[in-house]
Every structure is written in C-alpha cells, then in structure tokens.
C-alpha cells in the first residue's frame, strides 16, 4: 500500500484539478457540493468555489472527492 500511495502521489501531485470537454466536466479533489441543479452546479474546492452554469446537467460519477458531469456547458467561473 505504501508503494501504491507513493506512485499515486507522484502521478497525482496536484491537490485538485478540473478537466473540461465540450459536454463533460471532471473535477478531482473537491470538498463539497454546494448546489446541484440541472442548470447550475457549485463546488467548494479548497478555499474557493467553482460555479458551472449551462443546462441539462447530469451526474455520471460521484465519489468522495471526484465528480463527472455531463451537460451543455455555458460558463465556468471562480467565485
């Protein structure tokens, strides 16, 4: 397990990252979901909040610190 953690820390040396595609948003390392709606999602990441707006948002995957969202993205900004 120590070896696994060492490799993981080496490969994922970021505390968080946000991947953005045309219809998908992948957020790794978020702390809390503040708002989850079909048109708006707000996530708390460390000391800031990420606001994603658009329409037809659907959650495809959700774990402790990772979320994959599908939908038509209009805007993304840091609050």
């Amino acid at each position, binding site marked *: 397990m120590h070896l696994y953690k060492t490799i993981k820390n080496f490969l994922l040396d970021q505390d968080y990252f946000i991947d953005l595609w045309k219809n998908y948003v992948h957020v790794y390392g978020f702390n*809390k*979901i503040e708002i*989850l*709606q*079909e048109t708006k999602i707000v996530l708390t990441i460390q000391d800031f909040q990420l606001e994603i707006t658009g329409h037809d948002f*659907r*959650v*495809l*995957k*959700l*774990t*402790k610190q990772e979320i994959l969202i599908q939908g038509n993205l209009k805007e993304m900004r840091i609050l």
Partner: protein
Amino acid sequence: MKKYMWVTIEVANKARFFLKCQEKQIAILEVQQEKNSLQIKIQKEDYSKLKKIWFIKIVKIQALGWDATREKLRQYHIFICALVIGAILLYFCSHLMLSVTVIHSKEEIRSLVLDALESRGIKKNSWRKEFGELEEIKNEILEMYPNDLEWIEIETHGMNYVVRVVERKLEEETEEPTACNIVAIKDGIIKEMVYSQGEKMFSQNDAVKKGDILISGSIKKDEETKNTVCATGEVYAEVWYQVSASVPMTYENFERTNKVRWNIKLKNNGYDDFLFKSRLENYEEEKHPLLTIFGTEVSFVKQYETLKSTVTLTEEEALNKALEAALEKVEMTLDEKEEIIAKKVLKKEVNNSTMNIEVFVSVLEQIGERQEFVVEE
C-alpha cells in the same frame, strides 16, 4: 477485492440524492438516469448507507461478479438440478444395453453366438461397447468358429444389441452323374444350342415338344451306342405365353409437397402414438428408431406432407400401362440371357373403369434340363 452492485432506485429529487450521497460518502461509480428512477453502480459496502436514505425507494438490486453467479444459481437451482439429472439419465440410457438378440433360425447357432458374445462382455444389462471394440469382437468370433459362421454383424438399436449371423455351409461333394440327357421342359422352336458334351438331336428352327431329348448322352455310331456321357449344354428356344393384366383407369395419386414436420413416435404393444400433435392432413413418414424403454419403441419420425389427387387415364394410356404390367409379369420369370422377342395384344376391354387386356408374348428362353438315365448293359 471490492464487490460491486447495480441498484435501481426511485427518487423525486435527483440533485438532493446526489448531495446526500456526497454527504454520506457513497461512491457512485456509474449512473444511468431514467425519468423517475436512477440506476447506480455502487460498492457493496456502501449499500447499508444507501438504505438509510429515507427519501428514496430501492426497486431492484443486481449483484455483479461471483455474487451475481451465486444469485443466479440459487434462483435456477431446480432447473439446474433437473438438467444435471437429465444429462446423467441420458448418458445412462444411451450407454446401457438391456438385451441381446441373435437373429438366426437355428437354436444351436443362436446359443453358440450368445455364449461367445457373453464371454466378451456383450450381454443383458451391460455397458455399451464402442464401435472399435465391436469390430474386434466380431473378428474374434469369426476366427473362433471358422466352420460354423460365415458372417456376423452386431447392430445397436437403441438399448438393444441385434446380432445378425450367416451360417457357413460347407459344400458337400456331389458325384457327377455318368449318364444324362438334356430334355425339353417346354414346347418351342429352337433358336440357339450350345453344348460341350453329348450329341445334338435337333437343329436351329426345329420345333420341339416337352419331353423331347435335345442333347443326348448316348454317343452313337451306326445306330450303336459307342459311349455314354452326361450331356452338358444350354438350349434356347422361342416359347409362347398368353398373359392377362388389368389396370384401373382412375386412381388416387399422392405427391409430396415441400412441407416436412418432425415428430417422436412411441410404439407400445403394436399401438402407435405421437408425442406432438401432427398438423399435416396427409403425409408419408420416414422412421428412425432411437431407443426402446420398458418395451416402448421410441422413434424419430420425419413426416412429408402429400397432396392427394385423382388421376384419370385415357384409353391409350391405360392400354400402355396394362401392357407394361403384362410384360413385367413375363420378365420376372426370365434370367439375364432370356428376353422377350415379340408381343401382340389379343384382346382389350374396358369394364367398370378397368382396362383388361390379354397379350400374346413370344420369349427366347432356356428350355433344356438335365435328366439322368440308366445305361442298359
């Protein structure tokens, strides 16, 4: 090793559900959303947390991996048990032989073959032998009884062995007669005479009567018998027959269509019964015996649909058919060298839709027969 499962839930507010999952640290690995329900893939250990969410209704749980297999086995255990028992029974039934029947008219040959087979493991209530083993046993038995058996065949009919045997008949040496004539057995006109011993008494185109000596065994010179032999030869003569034949001018004909149906036929005490209902009105069947269980013969039957039609022959067609039938009657009595030379219809009449004819047939036939005689000293 982590275990996963698919859970189908009914939930009104999906966003609220996801927030709750995030709060309760339930990892959702895959989501398939429908109108009023969600299908989510979660870890098995998170299921207890999921159950505690009060505003959702769990509709269906589907385990994955070994758990799913175990679940399926539990669900279909009766069917699987029946399948296994059925397979064992089938193996048992197809490998157990319940009887051995030797087909031969002589009791001594039957018991001789039965004893030989029994000593080689072919007996009642025994396991079926493979084809190669049967071949070896056949050869062994033939080698063991070279003077008694000519040929042996072991067939497996379902759960029975059927053994066909041909007895070897050693030819007894017969003494060649010393004095014999070739005598006519029918009236006729001689057409061909072939002989190797004896003296011919008639020539080609001579008319002979039944009982006439055709080739004499007495070799004469100046009216005196010089030598006596057994006359050998063949005499072909023209002989005549008057044959009658009848043919119906209207008959029913059954012609096969392309429709074929399969069925299983059960025969018990001479009564036939089909496993499935036959949907064909008229059919011809082809039977393939499968096995015999407790006296019931089970056969696989192929049923060919037939169409019934009534055929009406014209007078000319009926005449030709009747003529063919009449000639066939004569041809059946002829051998390879014998043949029909001429034919003539003597009489024809139609009575009750039946064509009746009388035919005069001229045939080239062997009429000589060997007949022994006593030599007067």
